[in-house]
């Protein structure tokens, strides 16, 4: 249980670091503005559609919001430690690198959970206007958070690769863009025109969109959950390999 205490200590510090900088608040405000704008101003809007559901007007956009916002949250995780040199303190403390990686990841993931939770007025709105299936909405939130975690884990890798936050940001945006486009309908259509159906399916199965769609509809498929969780696990493993490689010289 000692390792959980260490992870908790790291997570607490990282969370405090987020909220001590204005960047966190700017991030949350931008996220909320985007959510509000795309839900109510982009046609057909949530109100026009006349459905007590958040899938089409709210969760549909999340993969695209996260494309830029999550790498912005994750870029500093390791790049900043390396730039300032505090990584040398952190990794000479009596903790394992794995505990540090998980602690840092959890802090950013919890931060994203806070941002996501701040969208609760939209849930109240649809509940006020109609009677949505709140179970479906919950599944959508869960899926959105898991997807954010997958993006974040990718950002962890790119952040460990460089001491420059901007480089980290750009690389993770590119990777996350691939994760979206692999399952984006227009791209799938394009692929189907020349590739075998099996190949198209294999490519699409790597996309966060494919796995997020089911959750948006309220389908808690264990395969989707496993996809997101294994992606997080694999990315964090890659991060630990990179960190070890960097230190070995």
């Amino acid at each position, binding site marked *: 249980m000692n390792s959980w205490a260490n992870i908790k200590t790291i997570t607490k510090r990282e969370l405090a670091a987020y909220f001590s900088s204005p960047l966190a608040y700017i991030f949350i405000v931008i996220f909320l503005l985007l959510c509000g704008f795309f839900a109510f101003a982009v046609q057909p809007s949530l109100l026009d559609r006349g459905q007590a559901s958040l899938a089409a007007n709210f969760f549909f956009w999340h993969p695209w919001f996260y494309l830029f916002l999550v790498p912005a949250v994750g870029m500093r995780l390791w790049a900043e430690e390396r730039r300032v*040199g505090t990584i*040398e303190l952190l990794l000479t*403390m009596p903790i*394992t690198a794995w505990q540090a990686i998980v602690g840092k990841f959890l802090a950013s993931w919890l931060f994203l959970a806070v941002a996501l939770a701040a969208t609760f007025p939209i849930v109240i709105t649809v509940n006020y206007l109609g009677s949505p299936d709140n179970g479906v909405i919950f599944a959508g939130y869960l899926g959105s958070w898991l997807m954010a975690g997958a993006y974040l884990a990718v950002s962890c890798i790119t952040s460990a690769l460089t001491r420059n936050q901007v480089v980290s940001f750009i690389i993770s945006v590119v990777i996350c863009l691939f994760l979206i486009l692999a399952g984006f309908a227009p791209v799938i259509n394009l692929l189907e025109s020349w590739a075998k159906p099996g190949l198209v399916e294999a490519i699409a199965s790597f996309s966060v969109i494919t796995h997020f769609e089911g959750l948006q509809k309220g389908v808690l498929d264990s395969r989707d959950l496993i996809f997101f969780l294994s992606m997080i696990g694999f990315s964090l493993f890659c991060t630990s390999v990179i960190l070890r490689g960097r230190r070995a010289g």
Partner: protein
Amino acid sequence: MIRVNNLTKFFGAKQAVDGISFAVDRGEVLGFLGPNGAGKSTTMRMITGFIPPTAGSITVGGFDMVEKPIPAKRLIGYLPENAPAYTDMTVHGFLNFAAEIRGLQGDARRKAVSRAVEMCFLEAVLHQSVETLSKGYRHRTCFAQSIIHDPDVLVLDEPTDGLDPNQKHEVRQLIRRMGEKKAIIFSTHILEEVDAVCSRAIIIDRGRIVANGTPQELRQKSEWAGAVTLRVNGLNAAALQQRLGQISAVKKTTVLKEDATSVTARAFPKSSANGTLAQSIADATQGWRIEEMHTEEGRLDEVFRSITMPDTAKRAEEKP
């Protein structure tokens, strides 16, 4: 407490540390000297478990740093080069974090933080953000972090770098006091610090240990050690040199200064003289008007240069 055996580190094809072995016991303060890029920081990073060695072994308090890093790291307090600290935290928050991650809880943690704050004179900036601190304060904040758990082993990479003379003095006092109960390794460029603080010093150059001994022993490696400097009235330089040359124990003499009334010269002993040169000169120079005469102890900076200079010069030639 610390046993380093045949420690070697390659960065790619470049060898940074080449088979270093030494040991530090409780109650010892080991000074780490060497020119920039000699491998001091790399060695310290390996001892503290930040980077793994390519070959060789490190044990701290009996725990192998590669096999059992966690219990080994628990015994160490480490001040890295340039004293990094989380800039987004206050001094108090940072020290509290360091104490927490060292496993200190509740009352013990509060006591540890206030003790470290007191020892490093941080009261004035306790609730200030690390980002806004002056270099001296930031340095001491990181230093406080390294002693927060009262470790048995302290590894300090240039602990007095960037401090003003008063702060340097304070830190040296602190290191010497703590050195009575701990095993301490610290690196420095400042040779007077070695005299002030160390019980033993190691000079490393190009990844190898080139000298290892007490400051006194190192000084005796100086070619000045045992030389006699004297100032004589009423003689000119040539005459003085000639007369000194007649003394059997003198190997050679150099004239340091000559003015209208006096001449200052230094006589170097033959190896057989063995500390008796001053006596021989005094015996041989009855009737001279000697104003001043003393035996040189040898100087560390001169030893340092003579040991590391040939390599530095070679290195300059290697990259045309």
